[in-house]
């Protein structure tokens, strides 16, 4: 069902209801309910293989749910045809776990890739926009390099610049600090916070990194066996007596 302009303005940017997804006999998501308000950042935590990345892919329509509902700006996305889905995707930036930069394109070409295909910027304006984005993430000096010639942390920065290229109002982060040293991870956190403040963005961050989640999130949700065990601020999680929550916080902190 198409959302009206009014619904798009008033509805929370992301609404997930009783979402279920299985791969073969393995139930990955087993009835997830989530809502992220405008300008809010929600971190989704949990053990490996609990379906956190799948949740992000369902939100952006890279995978289809078995049942349940995913609404972006009030519009149900499951069942949408590719052109309509692409219109929604233009409003969402996605930072992949391993950055997923196109390895045959340079840093500059990677960031320009979405801009060349959407919007009507002239060549000069597009180049200016790419330079601005690369400068924001501190990668303007490496614009001619290939992804294989830069470090993991730098790849994350370029991935972030590419995710921001179409000026989205929603950002999805899949393990933004995974595999990075603590200093680089902290730099990425600072960059994410800066982006969120400047763009007033709504974000979902999937992570194992509790210190990072505390820094960049307004709320946290902890997943186990395809379900959300607890959702709230870090203090709410700390106050929980649930054995799994206590174990997760103790191990992560």
């Amino acid at each position: 069902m198409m959302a009206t302009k009014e619904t798009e303005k008033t509805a929370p940017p992301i609404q997930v209801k009783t979402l279920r997804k299985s791969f073969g006999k393995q139930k990955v998501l087993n009835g997830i309910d989530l809502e992220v308000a405008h300008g809010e950042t929600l971190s989704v935590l949990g053990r490996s293989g609990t379906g956190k990345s799948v949740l992000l892919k369902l939100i952006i329509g890279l995978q289809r749910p078995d049942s349940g509902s995913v609404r972006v700006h009030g519009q149900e996305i499951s069942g949408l045809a590719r052109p309509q889905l692409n219109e929604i995707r233009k409003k969402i930036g996605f930072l992949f776990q391993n950055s997923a930069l196109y390895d045959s394109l340079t840093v500059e070409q990677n960031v320009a890739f979405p801009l060349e295909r959407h919007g009507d910027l002239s060549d000069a304006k597009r180049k200016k926009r790419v330079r601005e984005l690369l400068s924001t993430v501190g990668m303007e000096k490496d614009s001619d390099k290939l992804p294989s010639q830069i470090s993991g942390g730098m790849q994350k920065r370029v991935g972030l610049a590419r995710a921001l290229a179409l000026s989205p109002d929603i950002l999805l982060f899949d393990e933004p600090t995974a595999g990075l040293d603590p200093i680089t991870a902290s730099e990425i956190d600072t960059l994410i916070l800066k982006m969120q403040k400047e763009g007033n963005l709504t974000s979902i961050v999937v992570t194992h990194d509790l210190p990072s989640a505390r820094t960049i999130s307004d709320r946290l949700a902890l997943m186990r066996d395809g379900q959300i065990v607890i959702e709230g601020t870090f203090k709410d999680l700390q106050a929980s007596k649930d054995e799994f929550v206590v174990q997760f916080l103790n191990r992560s902190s």
Partner: protein
Amino acid sequence: MDSSTAADLRDTRKISPTASMSFLVRFFEWFGDLGFFCFQLVRAIFLPPYEAREFAHQLDELGSKSLPLVALAGAATGVVLSLETRDSLVSFGAKSLLPALLVVSIIKESGPIITGLIVSGRVAAGIGAELSAMKVTEQIDAMEASAVDPYKYLAATRIMSCLLMLPLLTLAADFCGIFFGWVTNTLTEPISLQLFIENGFRHVTFNDFLPPTFKTAVFGLIIGVVSCFQGMRARGGTEGVERAATSSVVLSSLFIILADVLLVRLIQVFFP
């Protein structure tokens, strides 16, 4: 080996009903996925926007860069055909037929099939490996997330390039085959190139030349579709990339040979 272990081994050699069912399911699943892929592909080819720059890049990457290999294979075919047929024709006292035999066999069959198989080896492996690596490293997902259609940007451009370039590469293989056939022949018994060509093409009609050359567009379609399909449905890590690259070459070569059988018969019927 005790008896229970031997019995276990015998049991594993039998194909269980579950295993054969699973094979059947995978077999039909493959065709189902291929049907879906072709549907997406047709939509991507005909509906705007078009990826003109990437298409031009692929024409160069898949076509121009295959030219030296195809030319070399064509030349080798010409040399071998000239060497092999000469002795037989001399023994029948029909060595004057050598140019005609060489030209006809190259333009009707050797040139097209050699080009198809050589390009299948080079291009199908390349496309299969590249797209599968992009798939397993989430680059194709990243493209979709950027609202860019990978069927349009990755598959349609490569498949259309293969389809267009194969007939052109076949012409190059034909030319090199005939030219080096003449070189081989003239080393044994000098004959001018003009006379060789005149004798060779005296009985050749457009029906001998055009349909076999254009049938290679079908080979190009097979190479493009099979390798893009295998690449874009890859799963797993490096193992998935290796599987996709190998299966792209094996399946496209196999389908080219099978398609050739059908196309030769169709050409005989429609262009007698």
